[in-house]
C-alpha cells in the first residue's frame, strides 16, 4: 500500500521519572480505519493518546500525521529540532480529541463550545462557524440543544457535544479516550451510537475503550496494550475469536461475563 498513513506512531517511549509507561509502541492507522485500543488500567492507553496529540511529549520516538513529524522539524540537511509549540498547535487541529470527562467549557453554550475553535483558531467568521457548528451538532443529534449550557445536559448529551466540538475542526483523525467510562450504563448507547455512525461515515478513529462489543463490531483493528507494549493486535474477529497471547485471553475472559 503506497498511501501515507494518517497516523504513524514510531517506537514511542514515555517515562515519568523512573516509571517507563510506554516501552516502544509502533503502529499505523490508515485513512477511514477504526482502531480500538484496549488494555488493563495503567497499561498506558491514555498516555499513548496524549502523546499522539502532544499533551505529553514522548521521551523518544515520533508520531507522523500524514507523514509529517509531530515532534521534530527536519530540514533538508537532515538535522532535527524539536517542533515549536506554534507548529504543534497547527498540527493539533487535525486531531480531534474526546476525553473521558467531556471537558466542555461550562461558561459557553453548546454552540459556543462547538464554534470556539473554528472561529478563533481557524478564523471562520462567526456566521460560517455557526453554520458548521449546526451541522456538527446535527451529526450528534443535538441541534435542538445549541443554546443550552453544558451543565443542563445529561452526561451522554455532554459527551456528544464534545464529539461535535472535535468534529467542528474537521480533523483527519478522531481520538477517543474512554468516551463512555464516566457515563451511566443507560447513557453509553447514545454515545456509542454516534461513534458507530462516524465510523460508518468513514471517519478515521482511534478509540480507547472498555466496550468490547463496540471494539469487536466497529473496529477494523484491535490493539491490546499491556505494560506499555502492544501485546497483540489484529482484526477483531481474529483477536476475539482466536486470541493468541495468554494475557489477552485472560483480559477478555473478564468481559465475557
Amino acid at each position, binding site marked *: 500500500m503506497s498511501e501515507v498513513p494518517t497516523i504513524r506512531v514510531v517506537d514511542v517511549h514515555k517515562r515519568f521519572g523512573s516509571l517507563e509507561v510506554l516501552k516502544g509502541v509502533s503502529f499505523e492507522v490508515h485513512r477511514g480505519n477504526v482502531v480500538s485500543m484496549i488494555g488493563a488500567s495503567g497499561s498506558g492507553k491514555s498516555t499513548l493518546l496524549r502523546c499522539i*496529540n502532544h*499533551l505529553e511529549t514522548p521521551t523518544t520516538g515520533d508520531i507522523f500525521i500524514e507523514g509529517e513529524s509531530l515532534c521534530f522539524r527536519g530540514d533538508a540537511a537532515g538535522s532535527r529540532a524539536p517542533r515549536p*509549540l*506554534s507548529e504543534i*498547535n*497547527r498540527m*493539533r*487541529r487535525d*486531531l*480531534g*480529541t474526546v*476525553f473521558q*470527562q467531556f*471537558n*466542555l*467549557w*461550562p*461558561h459557553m453554550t453548546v454552540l459556543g463550545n462547538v464554534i*470556539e*475553535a473554528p472561529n*478563533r*483558531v481557524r478564523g471562520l467568521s462567526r456566521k460560517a462557524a455557526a453554520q458548521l457548528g449546526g451541522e456538527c451538532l446535527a451529526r450528534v443529534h443535538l441541534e435542538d440543544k445549541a443554546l443550552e*449550557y*453544558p*451543565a*443542563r445536559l445529561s452526561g451522554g448529551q455532554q459527551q456528544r457535544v*464534545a464529539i461535535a*466540538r*472535535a468534529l467542528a*475542526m474537521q480533523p483527519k483523525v478522531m481520538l477517543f479516550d474512554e468516551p463512555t467510562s464516566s457515563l451511566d450504563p443507560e447513557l453509553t448507547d447514545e454515545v456509542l451510537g454516534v461513534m458507530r455512525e462516524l465510523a460508518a461515515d468513514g471517519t478515521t478513529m482511534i478509540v480507547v475503550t472498555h466496550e468490547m462489543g463496540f471494539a469487536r463490531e466497529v473496529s477494523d483493528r484491535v490493539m491490546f496494550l499491556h505494560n506499555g507494549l502492544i501485546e497483540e493486535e489484529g482484526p477483531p474477529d481474529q483477536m476475539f475469536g482466536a486470541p493468541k497471547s495468554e494475557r489477552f485471553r485472560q483480559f477478555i475472559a473478564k468481559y465475557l461475563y
Partner: protein
Amino acid sequence: MGNWQRLVWNQRDALFSGLVVTVEICLIAFACAIVGGLLLCLIRMYVRPLRPVAIVLIEFFRATPILVQLLWVNYAWPALFGWPDTFFTAAWVALALQSSGYLAETFRGGIEAIPRGHREAAYSVGMRPMLVFRRIILPQVALSTAPSIVNQFTVIVKSSTLVSVITVQDLMFESQRIVNIWYEPIEMLTATAAIYIIIVFLVSTAGKALSDMLRRRFGIAAA
C-alpha cells in the same frame, strides 16, 4: 424626633458629601484591587523569576492591619517614592493594596479550581496558551469568583471608615465632625451606622443574587 431633625436631617448635606467621598474611594480602590490582584496572581502563578516577589507582596498586603497600611502609604510612600500627593489618593491606594492581596489569592483559587481537562480540551483543538487563558480560563474565574469579589467590596467599605484618620473627609469623618460640635453622639452615630449597614447590605444582597443567577445559568459553584 426634634433631636433627629436637628442632629441628623439638618446635617444631610455634610453627610451626603461625606458619602460621596466614601463611595468614590471605595470604587477606585475596588477597581484597582481587581486589576492589582489579578496581576499579582498571574505573576505568582506564571512568572517564575518574579514569583517570590509576588508572594511576599501578597502576604505583606494581607497581613498588615489596614490602619498600619494607611499610615504607611500616607507617611512613608511620599518620602520613599514621592507619591501619593494627596490624602485622598493615599486612602484608596492603601485600601486597594490590602484587597489586592486578598483578591490575588481568590483568583488563584479560581484558576486552580478549573479542571486541567478544560485546558487540555482547548489545547487539543489548537488554541494558543494566551487564547486559552483569555477565552477559557479568565471567564470561568470571573464567574466563579464574582461572589467573593463582591464580598471584598464590602470589606473595602468597612475598612474605608479608617481613612478619616488621615483627614480624608469621608462619611465617617463628617459624622465625627458633627458629633464634636454638640457632643450628642447617639443619633448621629446611629444614623451613620445605618448608612453603612444599608450600603453593605445592598452590596452583599446584589452579590448573592449574582451568585444564584450564575449557578442557575452556568451550574458554576462559587469559589
